[in-house]
């Protein structure tokens, strides 16, 4: 079976035992840091920091490579777009392309940032039970006055969960319908007036049916969209505070230089 890109690897390392809220805050902080860091020295420091963190996770490197690989094409594209379309000192010219020094720097910087973001996110998702992440987000949102918007943090968390788990079903539906209509001689390029409804109508009807079935299953298991508990007990422990403190210290240092 196919392993998902961002997947949880159970364990009991230091990172695994941190509170999901700590890790969420850390990822946000590191994300901001990544995009505020201009110098290559700073970016290098962040990579070093990442590798230091992985040693606290007890996770194999392939977990992180898995997160970066599907985005590689996009990252390479960004790199070359920057390289060729940034104006500046032209390094060398061939054909109509004029890669510039600034372009090279921008390209490296931007692709390194994306890779860093993916790596930090992968580190969190690999060391945190997905349901604990949702639970953590729910807790962080709870003090916000969401009631004004007509939702509560419990609903928001459940909605988030559902939309993530529903995507694969949707893709499968698209594939199934595409195959079925192609077998009836439909060509997508040729006649969009005919082919768009042939795809969209079964898809929409199917999704509505799925949603109805899902709603019944949820209601049957006691879901009311109100207060619920979680199988995870979230308590900030001393290690969480120490970790956050260390991180803030690191961030302050980084921003200073």
């Amino acid at each position: 079976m196919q392993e998902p890109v961002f997947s949880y690897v159970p364990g009991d390392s230091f990172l695994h035992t941190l509170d999901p809220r700590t890790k969420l805050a850390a990822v946000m902080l590191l994300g901001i840091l990544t995009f505020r860091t201009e110098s290559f020295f700073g970016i290098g420091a962040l990579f070093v920091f990442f590798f230091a963190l992985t040693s606290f996770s007890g996770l194999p490197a392939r977990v992180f490579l898995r997160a970066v690989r599907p985005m590689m094409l996009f990252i390479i594209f960004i790199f070359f777009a920057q390289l060729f379309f940034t104006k500046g000192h032209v390094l060398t010219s061939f054909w109509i392309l004029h890669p510039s020094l600034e372009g090279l720097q921008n390209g490296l910087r931007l692709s390194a940032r994306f890779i860093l973001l993916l790596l930090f996110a992968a580190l969190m998702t690999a060391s945190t039970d997905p349901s604990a992440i949702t639970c953590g987000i729910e807790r962080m949102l709870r003090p916000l006055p969401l009631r004004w918007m007509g939702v509560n943090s419990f609903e928001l968390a459940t909605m988030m969960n559902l939309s993530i788990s529903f995507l694969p079903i949707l893709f499968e539906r698209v594939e199934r319908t595409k195959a079925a209509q192609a077998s009836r001689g439909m060509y997508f390029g040729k006649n969009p007036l005919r082919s768009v409804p042939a795809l969209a109508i079964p898809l929409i009807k199917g999704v509505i049916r799925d949603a109805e079935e899902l709603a019944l299953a949820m209601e049957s298991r006691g879901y009311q969209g109100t207060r619920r508990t979680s199988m995870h007990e979230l308590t900030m422990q001393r290690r969480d505070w120490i970790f956050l403190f260390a991180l803030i210290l690191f961030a302050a240092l980084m921003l200073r230089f």
Partner: protein
Amino acid sequence: MPIILENVSLFYSKNTPLEITALKDVNLRIEKGEFVGILGEKGAGKSTLIKLFNGILRPDSGKVTIDGLSPSSKKVKSRVGMVFQQAADQLFCRTIYDEIAFGPLNFGYSRKETEERVLEALEAVYLDRTMLSRNPFSLSGGEMQRVALACALALRPDYLVLDEPITGIDPSGKKEILETLKKVKDQGTAVITVTHNLKGFFPLLEKIIHLQEGRISFQGSRKEYLETENVPLPPVAAMMRELKSRGIQVNPAVFTVEEALEEILRVKSIIEKEKAEKQPE
């Protein structure tokens, strides 16, 4: 001319660590007019296999030919009709007429020709002409599946390929679909179906292909299949095989209730005769 697969292999997510072998070294030949059952567990590659027949999927290695042509050529597409498991995944028109006409119109047949084909297909699936103006979504599951079948038949295919056509359909709906398929086959169209409903399909199958982890583990006639070890059997056949293995001399290649009854009674009379002969001693 038949459907021929030579050394066909197909992988999903090829050249990545997630690579999955869907089919491996598959060789098969399906003649026109045959009724073929493709059996195997979930994930054995059945659905992948049939998608090769009309070019929805292409093999990574090996060769697929239909009547000597490549399955992705347009000529072949209309020769191979496909019906997938969930009819609701493909129905989208406001009337059943439009639904069945969608295929022929896509292949560029005239209005008149299309109408002829729609009526013919409708009759083949035992649906009434008065239904033509009805909305396909107002139908029951079994009727929807028959409309999907009509959509494929309207292309007058030489090969009709189906993926679990009677799964999730109630017994009376199943019977109607099986009857339709039998008629289609009798008119000279090859019917190739993926199924795990042995009880329903077994009496119709002439040839059986059993897939296991992407490989063909059995390919042959129904009679040969009944004599093969380690394959799923319909309940009566399983019972007859059990009898044979317990030392009762029945013919195990029997799968209908009528035949089994006859076989058991035949053996019973032999055993009784033997007993009667022994007793005087």
